[in-house]
């Protein structure tokens, strides 16, 4: 068997995987194929889920939507919007990063990579919003876990495990996502001209208040000019704090922010429309649009962000121009790394930092050489690696689903 197979339903997926398992034929699983994340793998067969799409059931008052796994994320977002609801984790549009234009990809693809946007530190990651699923494991068996209710402790929570598994455990066929009401109103408070360490102090200050900030990001001076908004000065660094809720409460909280940061020299407010646009541009990584370089994200304790930036992003210290920005109130750093060093020395140094500081790096965009030979995740301990390998086997005993996509040999 070789070539591309496009199943029309779950039972065809199951039959295909059963046959492949029998003949030990590895399968690359693809959805919209919009995200070139993960190690580059070559399989004789491609399982293209293009036809496994469509909304199965949307229950606004039950706060969930059930869809076939390869339904377009944009379609889901639009349907929810029609009922003034949304996905709380704020889906990220990686299209800009890879192609320079919008392309949200599929729901299943976002789940496979556990992609969450700027609201993640308040509302949880994508994995927190996956209530249940149906899938086909590596033996071709149809399995299910979870349900449509938010409170459920019946059996292991496999939803968490499949989110972020890059299609290496099972092929999702149906998923249930928790939905939330859209906030009535939102505004963004902006502080200008802070350096990275002042920005982290500001994040810490605001996170110790009860103002319920739902977005907190920082763009340094060398990575800001792609923002073109009337009320945003893009000539110096920007720290942005989003406030959402009933209009009256938003305005009060913005006033509170003004008073907390009254000593700041320059601030401004982005009202509803510009605020929404700002967070879309920020979350969708438009600052790295069509980047020819390596792009990585580093999830770390906010208190370690400053030392990370000083070591790896500050051009005055290390003499290279690594563009970066902080999201999640300092808990996430996105950075672009110069592609010209063939030994990827800096990536190795970052990995070392991560190991020492219990942080995690994921290379989100890279070139074919790196994808084929490098590791896109921080190296993990041998014990966890061996556990990972056993978990993979428990779902996919012959290792035919996206083999090697996450780690070489697993």
């Amino acid at each position: 068997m070789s070539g591309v197979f496009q199943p029309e339903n779950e039972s065809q997926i199951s039959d295909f995987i059963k046959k492949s398992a029998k003949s030990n034929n590895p399968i690359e699983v693809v959805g919209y194929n919009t995200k070139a994340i993960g190690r580059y793998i070559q399989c004789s067969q491609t399982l293209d889920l293009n036809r496994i799409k469509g909304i199965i059931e949307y229950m606004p008052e039950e706060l969930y939507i059930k869809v076939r796994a390869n339904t377009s994320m944009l379609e889901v977002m639009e349907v929810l919007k029609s009922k003034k609801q949304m996905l709380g984790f704020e889906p990220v549009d990686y299209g800009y990063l890879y192609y320079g234009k919008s392309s949200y990809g599929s729901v299943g693809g976002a789940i496979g990579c556990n992609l969450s946007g700027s609201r993640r530190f308040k509302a949880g990651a994508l994995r927190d919003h996956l209530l249940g699923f149906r899938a086909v494991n590596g033996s071709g068996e149809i399995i299910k876990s979870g349900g449509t209710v938010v409170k459920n402790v019946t059996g292991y929570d496999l939803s968490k495990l499949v989110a972020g598994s890059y299609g290496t455990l099972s092929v999702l066929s149906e998923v249930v996502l928790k939905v939330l009401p859209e906030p009535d109103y939102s505004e963004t408070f902006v502080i200008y001209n802070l350096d990275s360490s002042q920005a982290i102090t500001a994040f810490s200050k605001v996170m110790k208040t009860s103002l319920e900030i739902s977005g907190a990001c920082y763009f340094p001076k060398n990575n800001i000019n792609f923002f073109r908004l009337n009320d945003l000065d893009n000539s110096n660094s920007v720290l942005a704090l989003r406030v959402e809720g009933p209009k009256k409460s938003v305005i009060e909280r913005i006033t509170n922010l003004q008073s907390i940061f009254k000593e700041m020299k320059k601030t401004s407010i982005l009202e509803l429309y510009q605020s929404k646009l700002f967070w879309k541009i920020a979350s969708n990584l438009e600052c790295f649009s069509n980047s020819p370089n390596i792009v990585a994200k580093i999830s770390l304790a906010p208190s370690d962000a400053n030392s990370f930036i000083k070591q790896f992003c500050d051009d005055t210290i290390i003499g290279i121009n690594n563009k970066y920005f902080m999201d999640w109130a300092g808990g996430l750093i996105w950075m672009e790394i110069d592609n010209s060093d063939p030994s990827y020395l800096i990536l190795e140094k970052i990995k070392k930092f991560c190991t020492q500081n219990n942080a995690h790096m994921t290379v989100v965009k890279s070139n074919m050489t790196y994808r084929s030979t490098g590791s896109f995740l921080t190296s993990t301990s041998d014990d966890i690696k061996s556990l990972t390998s056993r978990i993979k086997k428990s779902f996919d005993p012959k290792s035919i689903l996206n083999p090697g996509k996450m780690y070489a040999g697993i």
Partner: protein
Amino acid sequence: MSLQMPQADELVLNNKENIVLNLKKISNNVLFENEEITPYETDGLTAYKQKPIAVVLPETTEEVSKVLKYCFENNIKVVPRGAGTGLSGGALPLQDCVLVGLGKFNKILETDFENRCVVAQPGVTNLAITNAVQHEGFYYAPDPSSQIACSIGGNIAENSGGVHSLKYGTTTNNVLGVEMVLMDGTIIRIGGKNLDSEGYDLLGLITGSEGLLGVITEVTVKILKKPQAVRAVLIGFDTIEDSGNCVADIISKGIVPAGMEIMDRPLIKATDDYAKAGYPKDVESLLIVELDGTESEVDILIEKVLEISKSNKASYHRASTSDEERLRFWKGRKAAFPALGVISPDYICMDGSIPRNKLADVLSEIYKMSKKYGLGVANCFHAGDGNLHPLIMYDSNNPKELKKAEEFGADILKYCVKVGGVLTGEHGVGIEKRDLMCEMFNDNDIQQQLRLKKAFDDKNLLNPGKVYPILHRCAEEGRVHIHKGKTKFPDLPRF
């Protein structure tokens, strides 16, 4: 014990003295005398009792690791235990097991406000975490009703909820990291102070795994800043349907309350008689809605909720004007267990989750079952997250009634699954609902979960006989039994 448990290993039973001797070489805290181990023979599911061969109370992660490694090498089963307050029998010992109690892991290791987290040992109580950070205005969000006694390690094992889980999530949404020991003694660390970790989400998998995959020895949890204002509204209805519609309407209008609770008429009467909460007595259904946020936000939301309740034919409503009044609204609801103990010698507490819009349907079915079985029932419902707790009243002096109550309970859970719900929302499967798992899962599903268990514990030595049916038997047995109000922890608020 009538419940079928894994067959006891004769070799282990016959080798007890030697095992105790070897455990004493590892730990200074090994209990084996009958009276010493009696407190560990059961947990919050008191209907079942079993003494282990020994109880070890380790004090360090290395000690836990050595105990587990020794048991692994000698094929001895291990049952982990936190505070022992669980309601589904997850910490029930086996005849041939070593029980590992984490009670001595009772220290808060770090309060880190810069990173908004607390690092604690697993035996620390849920409430102690909030107590450690409240001077800075922070708290730990999941609040199971037993929070004064239940341990944070146990909360992770059970993925405990609380009344605020619609807005703030359950334990799984609030844990950042754990250190844990696998059955072969391997110590691993998962997550930390960062939000997302690479690789398979082991943290999400461990949470709610009921002590089957590893023994947790350290936890890192997220803390939140307390909201500026919290207020509650009491709303009465002439029919259950109206209260259910009101809940759906509140959510459709874009409001996510911090808590939403419904009580039916039998429970309103019982709790008000007991706790003098001042509930209206002429309503069929009483809804408590709690809203939090900034002062002005809460005021706006209270207005909106009152408006919605009027359009859903509410016959009574009152909004709290002080924190004392808000706490009084909750007083009756929180006293549901002792209140029922007054009117019925025994009762079983069930724990299913259902889609919110099926509430009226499910309650009317429960009332029909109540007539059929000739047993009284009272219901409370975490309406925000669809978690239903029917309380079935019976008299254990009449052996026929116990059997009837158990059948009644199983029928309720089956009906929950039939309408699209699940067997357990927050109490866990344990041994209590183990044999109902086939109502929700087929053989493929169960086998997948059992294979996953083997990836962590290939000899099946850690907490065996829990969660998954033995030999896939799908019988109906076991619930939370309370005799004459004598629960294991009678003073502890429940659900």
